[in-house]
């Protein structure tokens, strides 16, 4: 692999020690589209997933706007069904699954491991193009009639709906391969390419989280692939595997779908947890509490996540025995999640907390994920779920985990690694204003949905009874605050690219490996000298002042 880049030419070419963003490291559009460098691929992932986030966000705003008042507000029921389906499908398949591993993982993971690249650079580029290819299918589906089945594609409706289901399903199928390739690449990289001295007990928690995520991606995604293939074949050839008229079982589709999609929610949240662990350690200026417990709980979530999928099917006609069994198994998930939350809290205790914007996002993550996780126990409990199933309570729970959890950590992670990625500092006070609107807007939008749901407002409904109007209005206003927050954050980042100050190599004073021995932005091969690891990633007590405050002479003097 990658012989074109370096290989036989040796390592003396100045290109490979040039900053990765500079023209010397690869010129023009070709230098980006054909690059094998994990940092450039990571940035391309970042731009694409943020575009997907924007698109999914527009659909979310449309859905909320339609629900602002009862009856028809801005669109017909038909288009409303498509809008919430596209919001879900885009956010899940195009944004949240590839976001953290594809963008942040690709950029940071090899640097944390002290290596020049991921194990298979060409496969890495391929996974990005497979992602784009799948996204093209999804876009084609949107313009050619769209989809109104909900992102879950439940049969039998998805086999009879006259919208463009097949192209969306094939899009998700292809995106699955992109996810598998990324996961495979990371597993091999973590196993085989660690720097000298970087043994398993010194791995940063971001690496542990990405490792757990990759395991889920590799084990679960193929099942989604075969499920979607069967669904596409069912629509195209009338296969009958999920069609009761031909002896098929629509509930088996749900089993197959959730065998992937429940582990998939851990593909979404575990990277968020991984980012948060790094943020807590850096901005508390201390060794993370319970390092081993946090690392193992990521793996625990990966494994337990495969045993609980039936809790999405309590009311779908699954047998009573199965629902009881799944309800019992579901409670197991609380253990690794709880382990993490308690350890993060203990990390904060007596730490020297610095309230930078990334830390504010990390703290929001902790609070919102805890709310999302605890309400997960409500809907995981069989008896309670019979009442709450398919209401806004579930919507709120899911968004507290996915948006309050993963998106908060993702934005926090972008801001945290931004100086490393771009070599520029951003305007903290502007970003903090952005965070404020995001946090307040998020809670305004979704906290009210718990109440609405527990009072019986069903999800995915186009219209509602008058008693829910106030709740819906508050929630819609919240969505506008969220928009303001994200726009402010985006503006802070754009401003940073255009006129941001140059960043020192380690602007946060972090002991993390990715900040040590690299420049901001890093050179093409990450390190001028292959690093040797002699301590853990959070061993602040073993760090010299020069290591923590390199480039900040005034800080080092203190």
């Amino acid at each position: 692999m990658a012989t074109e880049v370096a290989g036989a030419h040796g390592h003396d070419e100045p290109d490979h020690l040039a900053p990765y963003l500079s023209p010397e490291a690869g010129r023009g559009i070709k230098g980006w589209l054909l690059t094998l460098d994990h940092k450039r691929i990571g940035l391309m992932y970042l731009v694409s997933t943020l575009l997907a986030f924007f698109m999914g966000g527009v659909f979310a705003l449309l859905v909320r706007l339609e629900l602002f008042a009862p009856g028809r507000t801005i669109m017909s029921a038909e288009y409303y069904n498509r809008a919430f389906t596209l919001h879900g499908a885009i956010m899940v398949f195009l944004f949240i699954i590839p976001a953290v591993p594809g963008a942040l993982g690709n950029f940071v993971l090899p640097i944390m491991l002290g290596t020049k690249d991921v194990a298979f650079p060409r496969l890495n580029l391929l996974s990005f193009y497979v992602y784009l290819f799948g996204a093209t299918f999804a876009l084609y589906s949107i313009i050619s009639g769209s989809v109104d089945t909900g992102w879950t594609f439940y049969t039998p409706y998805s086999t009879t709906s006259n919208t463009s289901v097949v192209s969306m399903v094939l899009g998700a199928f292809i995106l699955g391969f992109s996810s598998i390739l990324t996961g495979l690449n990371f597993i091999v990289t973590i196993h085989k390419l660690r720097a000298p001295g970087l043994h398993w007990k010194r791995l940063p928690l971001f690496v542990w989280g990405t490792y757990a995520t990759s395991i889920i991606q590799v084990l679960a995604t193929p099942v989604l692939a075969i499920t979607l293939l069967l669904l596409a074949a069912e629509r195209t050839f009338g296969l009958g595997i999920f069609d009761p008229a031909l002896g098929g079982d629509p509930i088996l589709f749900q089993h197959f779908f959730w065998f992937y999609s429940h582990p998939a929610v851990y593909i979404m949240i575990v990277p968020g947890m991984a980012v948060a662990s790094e943020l807590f350690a850096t901005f508390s200026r201390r060794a993370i509490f319970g390092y081993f417990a946090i690392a193992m709980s990521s793996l625990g979530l990966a494994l337990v996540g495969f045993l609980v999928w039936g809790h999405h099917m309590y009311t779908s006609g699954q047998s009573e025995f199965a629902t009881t069994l799944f309800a019992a198994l579901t409670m197991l998930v609380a253990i690794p999640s709880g382990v993490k939350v308690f350890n993060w809290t203990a990390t904060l205790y007596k730490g020297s907390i610095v309230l930078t914007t990334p830390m504010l996002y990390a703290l929001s993550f902790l609070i919102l994920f805890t709310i999302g996780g605890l309400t997960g126990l409500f809907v995981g409990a069989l008896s309670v779920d019979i009442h709450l199933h398919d209401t806004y309570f579930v919507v709120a729970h899911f968004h507290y985990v996915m948006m309050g959890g993963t998106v908060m950590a993702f934005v926090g992670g972008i801001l945290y690694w931004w100086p490393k990625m771009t070599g520029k500092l951003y305007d903290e006070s502007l970003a903090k204003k952005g965070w404020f609107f995001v946090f307040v807007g998020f809670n305004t939008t979704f906290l009210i949905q718990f109440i609405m749901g527990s009072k019986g407002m069903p999800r995915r409904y186009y219209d509602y009874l008058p008693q829910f109007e106030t709740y819906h209005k508050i929630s819609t206003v919240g969505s506008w605050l969220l928009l303001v927050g994200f726009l402010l954050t985006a503006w802070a980042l754009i401003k940073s690219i255009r006129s941001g100050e140059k960043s020192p190599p380690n602007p946060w004073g972090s002991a993390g490996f990715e900040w040590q021995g690299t420049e901001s932005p890093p050179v093409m091969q990450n390190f001028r000298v292959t690093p040797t690891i002699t301590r853990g990633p959070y061993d602040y007590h073993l760090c010299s002042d020069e290591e923590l405050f390199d480039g900040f002479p005034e800080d080092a003097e203190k």
Partner: protein
Amino acid sequence: MASAHADSEHAEHAGHGDHPPYLAHHFDTPEQQFDSAKLGMWVFIVTEILMFGGLFVAYLIYKGQEPAIFIEAHNRLDWKMGSVNTIVLLFSSLTAALAVRSSQLGKKNETTMWLTITILCALAFLGIKYVEYSHKFHDGLLPGRFFTAHLPEHAHNGHVLPQRASMFFALYFMMTGLHGLHVVIGMSILGWVLVRNHRGQFSPEYFTPVEIGALYWHLVDLVWIYLFPLVYLVG
């Protein structure tokens, strides 16, 4: 990284004077590269097993629901052709393993021979599959709404299959079809390895593509090892 700058013995340029052309720049040693490629392939094999596994799970569940119909339907498959195909695939697996062996020993012409035999076996497998498929098409033994074997004109030895037997053929075609697709992919991979071998790119020090291609081919064999008895023999 604490001692990144102090530790000069790991410096970038040290020890790379003999960097062989097949070794990518981000690997330190051929062994590291070989191990990475193999681990990657094994992880990929895991994904393939789970993908086929989904179909096997569906097959076993529906078989458990309608055992009588499945047994009746599987009698319409040709177990003799299935057995011949099993032997063809097992033999191709042997020749693939032998190709790796000769490649490890640096016997280029022998490698070419074993790889060619493997690819020919794959073609033979697909040929036999084609004959089987055309019989099924002729008899209306097709999945879902194309299934016509319940109509009197397709009576076999005087009796017709129940309409619900279409489920068996839906699964049969999905499983063998997906497997057939893997045979084609495996053949292409081995063809590419054959070309590279012909160009003399492999040596006892570097035979990774042969090894990886053969692993993929054995996977195709593994799937068939389960598919054949479950679908053709016990129904």
